[in-house]
Structure formats: structure tokens, C-alpha cells
């Protein structure tokens, strides 16, 4: 890493740190139906109108089952909506290229992909989907899946925090005017899904997107409904330049950690990420809300030091990952070229060819550091946008994003998803270490018992089962191996990456894998559904369980969830419980490849 790289890194970390608190405070208002923002004069009427059209009362709090059901119902409606658009795009407007409808498996995969906030691209942006599909079918989920994710995280935080409104007492007989005090029903509530969805979309995502979109256009991003431009190049060749309403889609792609590119090359495409400055702000946008949510956590549980401790654990992992990735990508002797006539050790010729880092699959304007940092950011969060081709990274450079996804994307993480994923680890860390202080483990005063441990472990188990199970299936199946772009250990990495990315709802890829086949589209689709919903349902049950618990007041005997010791403990738990499971698979993929590459092994 050069001095300028360190400078960029420092600027990035500094900027991220600076926006965490203001965003957290803003989230506090957004996630409270009675909250106030300076946008109220403009958006309040729209918000009220929306509730009226939906027929919901934003103040009516839901218990965990109702909240989850609302979220599931909304996801179901959304996936059908997008599936229909993708299938019918041939007859829908804004299709200047006359692109046909998608195949059923590709439409299924893509609809699921966006609904689950994964944004895995089995399709190639400019060559497969119309402007209408992009703008309506996909952008819709970019907003709403992000808002839903934030809602789930907020619901969990509400469950953990000791809110006064955590429970509602009501009499089931109240409607017939004869409340029966002996038959009261106590519900432990977590907020209202519809209010969270609407408020996050209107007050948080949309305003930032408007400003961000204009900025991106100023950097050179396109925003039009033109047909693709045909030009005659300087040397007289013909070039067709893809166009489209891109600037409205990209801000939410980043801010909502969606990552589905407008173009096939995603954020590597010069239109989609024109300058180093646009690159910087896109990275910042990916981590912004996730970072702010840790501040929100601290505020809600009235223990800001805890919020910062969680944030610190995330940042330590993040810095470690980014530096590792950048180090290996910037390596001077990345490729060791074997001379054609070589019969002996290949190392003898390595100095003949000096490379300033691994530039295969990277853009010159970002360099190896801008690409490595982006790769770390996009997989630390569940974004999945890429400004470089991860498939062409060095083995360890590529292991970093793969590993971050396998951790469950808890390093800042996807909007909402990162926080609730991290809180699952917090629960486990507090449980194991909490015993060590000689008390029934308590998280912020709420006891962690069999039920909570069960739910937390369930979500981890599901993650592991999906990633390892599907990869194992693919790597011994013809349909799996035939899609590989690279042979040898790198091929295993391609498959492992695909299922890690989809299960983690990331969406980035070792893109050499030809995933647009019925088998891949279907299995990857299921991995995405498992990764999203089999994670959310246990998390919501956890939230419900916490909400029903009475918090013990803190004292000197209380397990401390702040400070350096806790941060180290949390990092240790994430690495030991979250990552050890993937070590054997990683050993056969990138790790073996790393050593083979050092010896000039080729496949």
C-alpha cells in the first residue's frame, strides 16, 4: 500500500466515523412513528396519505409474529410483482432495445434476488433487462428490501431495549364494550412494520438518494431513456453504448446495500462509477446506514458505549480485512510467469515481469487499493456491488470478501441485516462469556436462556448449512462444474463464493461462474430465500423473546457489554463461532490456491 492509499483509507474511515452519530440520531427519529425530522413539512402529508391508502395505523404496535407476517406478506407481494414485470418486459414500456421477457428460472432468480436484498446478477444488466424492469421491477426492491431490513433490525433493538411501550395490555372482549379484567391479554410489541417501511423509505432513503443521484450525475453518471447510442469510433469501428435511467437507481443500490448493477460490469462500469470521487462516496453510502444503526442501538438501549463497542468490533474486522486484501492485491509479484521453455523451477524468470499489483479485472482509475477497499466494503456489508472482478483477485485477496460474507456480513453489514446478524453474535458472546462471570448470562439486563441460544444458533446453523450444503452439491454435480470459468481450486472458490454470496444476501460474485442455468438459478434462488427469511424469522422470534423479558438493573456484577474487553470478545466470537466452520472449505479453495500460485501452479 502506498502513502496515497493510506491517506484514502484514513479519509474513508474518518468520514464513516463522522457520519455515524448524525445518522444514528436521524434514524432515531425516522424509526419512531412520532419522530420529527426537518423533512416533515414536505413528507408528512405523503406519509399520512400512504397510511390512509394502505389502511394501517402506524401507532398500532405489532408483536413479533404480526411484524414478521407483515414483512413476509409484503415480500411475497413484491416478489410476484417483480417476477411478473420481468416475464412480461417484452410488452411493457421503456424498452427501446426490445429486450424479450426473461426465462422462468432467471425471472425467479432475479425477483428473489432483489426481494431478498441480495441483488445477485444472473442476468447481464444492459443485455437482458429493459429500462422499465430496472426502474420499476428492480429499483422498487432496492428501496423496500432495504427499508424492511432496517425495520427488522429496529424491531430487534426495540425488543432488546427496555421500552415502556414494549407491551400492550388489552382485553379481547373490549370490542363488545364489556372489558373483562380477568381476561387481559398482554402482547409484547416491537413497533409497526408498515410505519417502519414507509418512514425508512420516505424520510431516510429517498432524500439521501435524491442528493446522491444529482452528485453522481455531476460525476458523469447517465440518466436518460435514450436508446443505446451507436457511434463510429476514432478508428472507424462501430460501438454501441448502453444508456438508461441509471442515476436514479445507483444511489439506492449503494445506500440500501443492494448492489444490483445497472450494467453487467456493475460499479466497474465507467458510467456507473465514473470517478475516484464517485467511488469514494459510493463506498461511504454502502456502510453509512449500517454504521448509523450501531449508534441507534446505543441510543435505544441507553448504553451508547455498547453501541460504540459493537461498532468498534466491526471496524477492527473491517480494517483487518481491507488491509489484508489490499496487501495481496498490491503485491509486486502477483503472477509468476512460467517461461515457455522452462523445464525447471518457474521462479527463475519472475523478475522479468514486474507488475504494480494485480490489475486483471480492475479499473485503472481505482487502482488496486480503490478496488480492494471497495471489495472489502461491499462484502463487509451485504451490498455486492463490485468495482473490480473478484474472480480475478489473488487467492487471499479474493478470500477476504468470501470470508466476510461467510461471517454473515456482520462487519457493518447490510442495512439492518448487518446489525441483527451482529446482535446474534452478541447474544452468543454474552452467553458464553457471561457464564464466565458467574451469573446467568444477561444481555443489557435481559437473561439469555435456552430459547435465545436456540434461536441464535438456529440462524447460524441455517447459514452454514446453506453455504456448505449447496456448494457440496454443486461441486459433485455436472450442472455445478460445467458452469465454472476456472479450473482447480479456483473453481471451488467460484462455487463457494456463489452460495456464500447468495446465502449472505450479498450478490457479488466470482463472476466467471455461468450461473444463468436452470440449476444454478434455482439453487441460488433458494439459497437467497434461506439466507434472508430463515435468518429473519429466528431473529424476530429472538426480538419477541427479549421484549417479553424484564431487564435486571445494572450493577457491578452485570456483564459489561462495552469497553475493549467486550469488543475483543465479540471479535473472537465472530471469528471462532462464525468462521471456523468454513476453514476446511477455504483451505481447499483459496488457501491451497495461494500456495500453488507461489509455486507457479496453473490450471
Amino acid at each position: 500500500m502506498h502513502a496515497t492509499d493510506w491517506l484514502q483509507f484514513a479519509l474513508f474511515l474518518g468520514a464513516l466515523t463522522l457520519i455515524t452519530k448524525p445518522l444514528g440520531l436521524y434514524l432515531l427519529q425516522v424509526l419512531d412513528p412520532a419522530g420529527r425530522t426537518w423533512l416533515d413539512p414536505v413528507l408528512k402529508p405523503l406519509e399520512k396519505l400512504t397510511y390512509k391508502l394502505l389502511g394501517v395505523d402506524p401507532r398500532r404496535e405489532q408483536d413479533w409474529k404480526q411484524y414478521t407476517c407483515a414483512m413476509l406478506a409484503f415480500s411475497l407481494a413484491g416478489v410476484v410483482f417483480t417476477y411478473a414485470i420481468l416475464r412480461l418486459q417484452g410488452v411493457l414500456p421503456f424498452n427501446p432495445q426490445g429486450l424479450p421477457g426473461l426465462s422462468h428460472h432467471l425471472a425467479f432468480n432475479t425477483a428473489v434476488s432483489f426481494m431478498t436484498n441480495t441483488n445477485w446478477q444472473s442476468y447481464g444488466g444492459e443485455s437482458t433487462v429493459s429500462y422499465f424492469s430496472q426502474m420499476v421491477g428492480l429499483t422498487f426492491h432496492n428501496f423496500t428490501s432495504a427499508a424492511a431490513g432496517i425495520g427488522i433490525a429496529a424491531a430487534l433493538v426495540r425488543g432488546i431495549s427496555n421500552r415502556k411501550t414494549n407491551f400492550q395490555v388489552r382485553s379481547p372482549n373490549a370490542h363488545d364494550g364489556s372489558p373483562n379484567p380477568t381476561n387481559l391479554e398482554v402482547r409484547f410489541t416491537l413497533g409497526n412494520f408498515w410505519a417502519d417501511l414507509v418512514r425508512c423509505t420516505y424520510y431516510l432513503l429517498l432524500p439521501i438518494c435524491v442528493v446522491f443521484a444529482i452528485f453522481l450525475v455531476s460525476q458523469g453518471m447517465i440518466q436518460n431513456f435514450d436508446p443505446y447510442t451507436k457511434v463510429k469510433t476514432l478508428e472507424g469501428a462501430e460501438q454501441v453504448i448502453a444508456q438508461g435511467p441509471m442515476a436514479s437507481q445507483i444511489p439506492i443500490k449503494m445506500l440500501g446495500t443492494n448492489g444490483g448493477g445497472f450494467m453487467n460490469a456493475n460499479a466497474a462500469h465507467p458510467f456507473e462509477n465514473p470517478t475516484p470521487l464517485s467511488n469514494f462516496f459510493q463506498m461511504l453510502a454502502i456502510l453509512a446506514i449500517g454504521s448509523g444503526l450501531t449508534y441507534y442501538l446505543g441510543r435505544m438501549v441507553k448504553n451508547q458505549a455498547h453501541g460504540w463497542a459493537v461498532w468498534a468490533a466491526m471496524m477492527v474486522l473491517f480494517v483487518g480485512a481491507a488491509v489484508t486484501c489490499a496487501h495481496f492485491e498490491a503485491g509486486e509479484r502477483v503472477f509468476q510467469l512460467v517461461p515457455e521453455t522452462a523445464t525447471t523451477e518457474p521462479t527463475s524468470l519472475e523478475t522479468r515481469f514486474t507488475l504494480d499489483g494485480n490489475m486483471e479485472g480492475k479499473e485503472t482509475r481505482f487502482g488496486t487499493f480503490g478496488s480492494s477497499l471497495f471489495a472489502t466494503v461491499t462484502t463487509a456489508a451485504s451490498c455486492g456491488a463490485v468495482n473490480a472482478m473478484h474472480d480475478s483477485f489473488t487467492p487471499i485477496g479474493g478470500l477476504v470478501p468470501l470470508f466476510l460474507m461467510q461471517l454473515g456480513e456482520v462487519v457493518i453489514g447490510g442495512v439492518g441485516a448487518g446489525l441483527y446478524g451482529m446482535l446474534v453474535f452478541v447474544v452468543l458472546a454474552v452467553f458464553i462469556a457471561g457464564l464466565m462471570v458467574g451469573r446467568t448470562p444477561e444481555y443489557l439486563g435481559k437473561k439469555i436462556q435456552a430459547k435465545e441460544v436456540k434461536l441464535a444458533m438456529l440462524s447460524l446453523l441455517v447459514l452454514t448449512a446453506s453455504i456448505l450444503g449447496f456448494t457440496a452439491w454443486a461441486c459433485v454435480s455436472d450442472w455445478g462444474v460445467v458452469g465454472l470459468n476456472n479450473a482447480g481450486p479456483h473453481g471451488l472458490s467460484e462455487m463457494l463464493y456463489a452460495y456464500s454470496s447468495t446465502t449472505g444476501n450479498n450478490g457479488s460474485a466470482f463472476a466467471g461462474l455461468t450461473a444463468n442455468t436452470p440449476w444454478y438459478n434455482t439453487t441460488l434462488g433458494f439459497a437467497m430465500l434461506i439466507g434472508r427469511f430463515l435468518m429473519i424469522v429466528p431473529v424476530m422470534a429472538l426480538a419477541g423473546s427479549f421484549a417479553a423479558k424484564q431487564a435486571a438493573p445494572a450493577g457491578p456484577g452485570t456483564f459489561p457489554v462495552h469497553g475493549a474487553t467486550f469488543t475483543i470478545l465479540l471479535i473472537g466470537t465472530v471469528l471462532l463461532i462464525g468462521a471456523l466452520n468454513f476453514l476446511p472449505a477455504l483451505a481447499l479453495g483459496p488457501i491451497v490456491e495461494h500456495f500453488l500460485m507461489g509455486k507457479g501452479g496453473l490450471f
Partner: protein
Amino acid sequence: MSHKPTPLFDASILVPAIGGAFQKLDPRLMVKNPVMFVTLVGAVLTTVSIFTARTDYGFIIQLSLWLWFTVLFANFAEAVAEGRGKAQADSLRKARKDTMARRLHNSAESSVPASALEKGDLVVCEAGDVIPADGEVIEGIASVDEASITGESAPVIRESGGDRSAVTGGTRVISDRIVVRITSEKGNTFLDRMIAMVEGAKRQKTPNEIALTILLSAMTLIFLLVTITLKPFGIYSGITFSTPVLVALLVCLIPTTIGGLLSAIGISGIDRLIRRNVMATSGRAVEAAGDIDVLLLDKTGTITIGNRMASDFRPANGVTEHQLADAAQLASLADETPEGRSIVVLAKEKFNIRGRELAHPHAIFVPFTAQTRMSGVDLDGRSIRKGAADSMKSHIEGQGGTYPAEVAKAVEAASRAGRTPLIVAEGCKVLGVVELKDVVKGGIKDRFARLRKMGIKTVMITGDNPMTAAAIAAEAGVDDFMAQATPEDKLQRIRAEQAEGHLVAMTGDGTNDAPALAQADVGVAMNTGTQAAREAGNMVDLDSNPTKLIEIVEIGKQLLMTRGSLTTFSIANDIAKYFAIIPAMLMATFPVIAPLNVMGLASPQSAILSAVIFNALIIIALIPLALKGVTYKPMGAAAVLHRNLLVYGLGGVLVPFVGIKAIDVLITTLHLA
């Protein structure tokens, strides 16, 4: 019951435990512990593969042997813990040798075996008789030797009515005669339950243990997935992983260390409690003891030594201290209460006034009555009285005397200082004030400071007035106090603390303590207490020592800490095991990964074997820790966490690197691999 600490490794326990380890291989028992059950299945699979393998017999045979050892070592740990409990149970059982009971039926006495007694039967016990079952004295008073239960040789008094009416089966009447109503069901006496508890026969998993078992089972399931999917990954990579090698990886990764020691930790926790003469009715209560953050302590007997002692004479104006002391001593000569005697002693110590003959021909002693609320003596025309300030004031003013202002001041000052003022008067003249003082037990302040460090709030309960209570509270260093507390107040206080989320422990002995004992999260009944109190609490302290509560809390905490520490250790071990096994598994196909073999293990086979051997031996090595519990020091949670994370977290990462390397060197030297 023996109170000598049983040595950790006593041959009389170890030898049967070896047999027990094999008996516990029964799959029906093993399946209750998922981690060890998976290990057992692995051992069976590996053993089977000895017969299907074509090469590497020596390796596979050794591997399967060590896998069997892993299971056996875990069973052994449990058997040792149970054995230690059984040793206690046996000594208890001796007390239960079937005695004959003298049953009263319609005032006719008949001799029946103790085991035939029903709840509600009446039995007679006289000097020399063993009380046949738990019961309540309904008639008479007797001294009872409870050494068989408590180990305490001094006999205790048991009498009908009041708070000392409960008797325990197996104890012996030394003097007098009592009639006892049997209160326990057949086969469910206190002794029976105690035996069942220490033997671990009826041991039920406690809430934290269940939660931990879920964590360990889920981790086992995850690692099972990891190992199974490695097979197809191997197929893709052109490596055939053999079953024994996969089993070795699996067993090393699943948390066998904690899985193998979990039940031993639980059993020995209860065992440690019993060694301190505390009987818990459930393991759940022991665990709850660790969570306690509020202790309600009765002042008398717990914080103070129980009796107030005269400490000062404060004469009225115009009276010398000597005169006051003399009069006070005279008034107390016939007062046999500890307070009265302490006045006599103080006068003697201060002014060398010798206690005069009680048999003074003209002395008429006036005893204390509830109506007059004073006592004294009429002697040679002198009428000396002592009593509480308000009653003495009305007495003197009733006789036309005046109650001096300085005396009233002294009374108030004494009360404020937590002392009990007694007014001494001769005729209608007030001589002065004798101050009685509560004596706080030595060292109690340090104990409370320790509790505070552990995050436990102490609340003193007393019937004293608030001023007195505050002074004693300050002297003893409790965090809070409840003055003029009735049993109902206690119950209210417990409910209030619980409503705020606190977990409350208390001790009690009286029948009127029963509701509070039942309400408390940990209610420790004194063995000298009533049957009702003993039924209501979830622990009984056989020594009837209220301070024991502190030790109980420490034991509870130690139990949880041991579990947490060994779990952390077990999980942290995985890192080193990965570094031993993964390179070994891939070395044959990809020799380039040699740098990953950071420990420099001799060969793939020695590496795998070393990891498995380490994994087995660490269980044996940690049995003493599991039985004794991790060292407990009263510190704040943050400090404890810091320390244990370093010892068991960091230690857990580093120790196996050293251990596996050492074993590798050893087995290579011995040419075992």
C-alpha cells in the same frame, strides 16, 4: 457425615468410576449428551473401518482407541463426580438404617419399622431413641444430637410450638421425651431427598445447563455439516478423505472438552454445597444463587452476635458514674437476660463493683413484666428501677419526680448512635442512662465489601427503630436496611426488589418467614427452624448459620464460571486443532501447503493422532478443575471477565499448540506414527 475434605482422587472413588465409565457407554444414556454421543458414533465408525481399510492399520487402530478413550474419559469424569456424591450419600444412608419407631395410636404405643410410618403418624422419642422420620414436635422438649446430619457435636434443643419444633429423621434424642408428628411422605424424607441429590440420580438439568447443551449440540451439528461436506469438496479437488480422518476432524472440532465435563461440573457444584452443610432441593436453586444480587439478612445472629451488651454509663447531673453503675448493677442482679448480665459485668469491669449476694435478706426483686416494662430491686428502703426510656419517664413522672432534660438528651443521643438506652432511677430520681450496644460480628464488614464487589446489595432486616438500625447498618457496612420490619414487610420488600428485576436471597427460620422464603429466589432455611420454613425455602443450612448465604452465592457463581470457562477453552482449542489436521489432510495431494503446518508436526498421521490424543487427554487433565471449580475471587464482573478471558480464552488458543506438538514429538519418538 464426614467433614474432612475428600481428596480429589481417592482410590475408593476412582476404582469404581473406571467401571462406571464403561457402564455409561450404554447408548441410551449417551444420547442425553449429544456431543459425546457423536463421539461414540465416531469411535464405532472408526473401529468398523479397521476391518474395511486396506492400509494404515496401525494408524486407524490407534485412532479408534483414542476415540474410545475420549468417550470413556468423559464418562469417567461423570462417574468420579457421582462417586464423590455417592460417598456422601453412603454416610448419610448409615443414618437411615431402619430404626424401629414407637408409634402412638389412640394413646397406645406400638413398635413399627420407621419405613412404615405414614405422614401424620405420631411417634414418641425418648433419650437414646433415633427419630424415625422428619416431623414436628407437638409435645415436650428435648435435646437432640444432629451430628449425623450436620456433623455438629453440640446437641440442639427441640421443643413443641415456636420456631424450634422441626426434627429430622436419623437424628438422636439425648434427653427428655418428645412426641413427634411425622410430616414427610414415605421414602421422601429430608434424608432421602438429600441422598438422591448427592447421588445425582434425580439430577435434572438446570436452565443454564440446558441452554449450554443447546449451544454445544448446535455447534456439533454445524461441525457435522462441515465434516460431511468435506467429502464432496474432496471429490472435486481429487482427494479421497477416509472415514477415520473425517471422524478425527469432527471429534476434534466438536466441543468434547466441555461436552465431556458438563455433567461432572453440575454434580460437583451440588457436592461442594453439601460439603458446606447446605442442602439444596434442586440444582436450579444452586444456579440461581449465582445470580443473586440482593441479600436480605436478619440483623440478629447474622450481622450482630445476637445480644446487646452494656457499653456505657451516662449519669444524670449530680450523680457520679460510680453511683449509677452501682445502682444499675443492683437492679440487674436478678436479671438473667444477657443484657442484664452484661450490666453487672460492665459495672464490675469499670468500677470493680462486685456482684453482691443475691440472697440479701431484704432484697425484693421486681421482675420485668409486659405491663410495667421495667425491672429492679427494692433493698433497704431503696427502690431501684431500670427500664426503657418511655416507660421509665411515665413511672417517674407518675411518682411526682422530674425527668431531667440532659437525660432525655442522652437517651436521644444513644438511640441515634444505634444503642439501646435504659434509664436507671432510684425512687423518683433519675440516676442516669445505661447504654446497651449491639455488637457487630467481627469481619462482617469485609464480607459485605466483598459482596459489594461481586455486585450484590446487602439489606439488613431488623425490628429496631430506624435510628438504631441506621447506626448498626453503618457500622456493619450494609447497603440498605429495613427497620421495624415485620415478616410481611420482608415479603413486600422481596416482591419490590424482584419487580425491579433483582434476584433476592434471604435466610429465615420462623414459620412467619415461610412466605418470604418461598417468594425469594434463593430461600435458605435454618435447620433449627420450623418445618414450615424448611418446606418453603429451596435450601436448608444444616449449620443454621445465616452468614452461610454468602458462601452459597459464591458456590453458585463458581459453578457457572466453571461452565463458561471450560466452554470458552473448548471452543478456543479448535484453532490449533485446525492447524494440526487441515494441513495433514491435504498434504498428500497438495504438498505446497506445508507452510500451514505451523507446528512442524512430523507426518500427516502423527498430526491427526496428536490432535485426537490431545483432545482426549485434555478431558482427563481438566477433571480436577471441573470438580473443584475455577478459582473464585470476589471482583466486579468486568474484572472477572477480563481475567477468565485471558486464562481460558487466550490460554485455550495457546495450550493446544504446545500440547499437540509435545504429543507429536512423543509419538514420533516412540514410532507410533
